[in-house]
């Protein structure tokens, strides 16, 4: 017949969280111990406002890079900036940055990768020669494409550059190669609308400097000398703002508002939202393997 459950005194019998024993409770019994192993927000991080502001400077820097690049292009396009000047300034700042990088790094990275100065010089020379050689091609490559398309494409590419840039977050969308490629593509597009092939060559070189080399130096600065990094960021932001101001006052104000909201308002909002965080943990969570298991295979 039926398996009758032992009807003992319910007050005496204590409920146990086990399945193998027939307990004198109905199946839908809810004990006081229900959900006692529930934990909330055990991995939640406490954020410090100024630390978040400091971290947001990476985004500010990248926005400023794009802004400076566009401003420089506009100056070139209008004929207000001679290409030689830009080339000279770019070369000087590159050399300065190179020395600075080595100075901060104290040759550690060089030791690790085993790369010599001669190799650096060689790749720089190869790059400059090739760009110079191909600049007439760059100039005429997009001649048949309408200027509006070029502008639209450049805007998309620069936005993509900002989206995919490696800001240090560990997300699937981050891809520094894609980001760099998009920026270079934008620069090629814009360079093809400049008056002469020398302009195009210098524009692309400048793009490499500001989108590939400058972030590397920034990263080094941020890791080794945070104070000077803050100074550099402020200086860079002001110069970008100044440059934009000379073209359009409204644009400059909007840009400044954007920078302020990113560096001051967003961190504030992030910290406020932490109060509403409710991350639930309990025995049902998938366990994490914390050890490094690859040692067994190497």
């Amino acid at each position: 017949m039926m398996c009758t459950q032992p009807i003992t005194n319910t007050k005496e019998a204590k409920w146990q969280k086990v399945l193998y024993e027939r307990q004198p409770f109905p199946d839908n019994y809810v004990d006081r111990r229900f959900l006692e192993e529930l934990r909330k927000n055990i991995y939640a991080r406490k954020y410090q406002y100024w630390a978040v502001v400091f971290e947001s400077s990476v985004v500010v820097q990248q926005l400023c890079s794009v802004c400076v690049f566009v401003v420089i292009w506009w100056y070139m396009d209008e004929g207000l900036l001679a290409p030689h000047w830009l080339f000279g300034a770019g070369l000087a700042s590159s050399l300065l940055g190179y020395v600075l990088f080595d100075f901060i790094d104290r040759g550690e990275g060089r030791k690790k990768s085993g790369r010599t100065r001669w190799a650096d010089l060689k790749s720089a020379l190869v790059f400059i020669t090739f760009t110079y050689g191909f600049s007439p091609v760059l100039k005429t490559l997009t001649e048949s494409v309408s200027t509006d398309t070029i502008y639209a494409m450049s805007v998309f590419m620069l936005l993509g550059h900002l989206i995919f840039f490696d800001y240090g977050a560990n997300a699937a969308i981050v891809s520094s190669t894609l980001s760099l490629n998009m920026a270079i593509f934008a620069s090629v597009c814009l360079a093809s609308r400049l008056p002469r092939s020398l302009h195009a060559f210098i524009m692309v070189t400048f793009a490499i400097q500001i989108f590939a080399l400058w972030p590397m130096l920034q990263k080094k600065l941020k890791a080794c000398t945070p104070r000077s990094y803050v100074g550099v960021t402020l200086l860079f932001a002001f110069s970008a703002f100044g440059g934009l101001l000379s073209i359009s006052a409204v644009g400059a104000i909007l840009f400044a508002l954007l920078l302020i909201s990113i560096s001051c308002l967003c961190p504030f909002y992030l910290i406020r939202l932490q109060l509403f965080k409710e991350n639930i943990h309990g025995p049902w969570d998938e366990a994490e393997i914390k050890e490094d298991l690859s040692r067994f295979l190497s």
Partner: protein
Amino acid sequence: MACRRGGGHGQPTLATLSRVSPGSLSTCRTHTHNICMVSDFFYPNMGGVESHIYQLSQCLIERGHKVIIVTHAYGNRKGIRYLTKGLKVYYLPLKVMYNQSTATTLFHSLPLLRYIFVRERVTIIHSHSSFSAMAHDALFHAKTMGIQTVFTDHSLFGFADVSSVLTNKLLTVSLCDTNHIICVSYTSKENTVLRAALNPEIVSVIPNAVDPTDFTPDPFRRHDSVITIVVVSRLVYRKGTDLLSGIIPELCQKYQNLNFIIGGEGPKRIILEEVRERYQLHDRVRLLGALEHKDVRNVLVQGHIFLNTSLTEAFCMAIVEAASCGLQVVSTRVGGIPEVLPENLIILCEPSVKSLCEGLEKAIFQLNSGTLLTPENIHNIVKTFYTWRNVAERTEKVYDWVSMEAVLPMDKRLDRLISHCGPVTGYIFALLAVFDFVFLVFLRWMTPDSIIDVAVDATGPRGAWTHQCSHSEKGGENNEMSKTR
């Protein structure tokens, strides 16, 4: 926490207690139910959910209920089939989308499901597995048609990532007006209550079971000169195959008379093969590949110790099967595993190589010193724990209870959806529920219930098969055969 009955907790609880208490059950037993199990997962697909549905249905048929199963077509297996004891299975021609789960538009399955529910005179819909789209569809339509609903959740889910946020929301929608929910362990109940924001009173815990006669020990099959550790699981990340790849070299270097038998297939098999190659363990680590369910016992009885490295588990059938075969079980302490076996039969470890190795060494030490229980003893203890008969009895109580409840009428259901599932989702699904209702009215107009032939019962109180068995008389329409075109 959402509260289904709002306010007063004390009274309903008492009422519940008296209603399901064993004494009053004999009165409930007088009427039987027409149960329809719905899930995307059924034989020929293999797995825990599939065998759960099959075994539960068989035991319910034994207890005099009418049971049918609705699933989707598997390859050439479509139409209507009969299994042992007249268990009728509908393999519906619905498109499979991902992982044997059907694609859902929420509506396209209504005509067929409604036709089946009407012709079989179904009174209770029992859906299985939260991964099955068809199960949720059936719940949705059953509520529209005013049929009582029960849902069994077989899996655990986290709360951390985006996909689980979405699936948990859908589960909330699906379960907010379901009459009763069954979970397989207390941990699973806590998880489901949190995921779907339910009142814990309407969630019952009924564990899975194993057939102890299928898993009997056979001490002569194992060689006592060596110690054999058996692992039977799919070789995937969630089953902790990575941990296994660390344990094997660690222990094999320490104990010279230790062998591993690993049954199962999966994407992580390659790392086990690499480990075997790297440490030259070809004669000591046997990889058997995919196992048929009937072969599992023959593999289990060859070992002394069973190792389970799962990272998450609602109710681990494998360790019960292994213990039933008389093996000492070493397992990770995750999910519902600590609830499954008493402390003297299982060694629980943290999910790390170090802890699992310590647990295995403890088991090896006990084995060498002879302090372990004999396989026969372990089997005799375990076989009383989980039986399908017991599961069926307890599930029957849920059905009795549910059949006395009222199904929410349409207006109350819409209120519930809107108030329970958040403003956006709630309104969207309330709208969908209205569409579903309009579609149902249209279908009722197209083919009224009166012109749908009532199916001949194979099981249940007036079942043709049960009569055939008891009186061995061959009635007119008993002769239908299970072949379909």
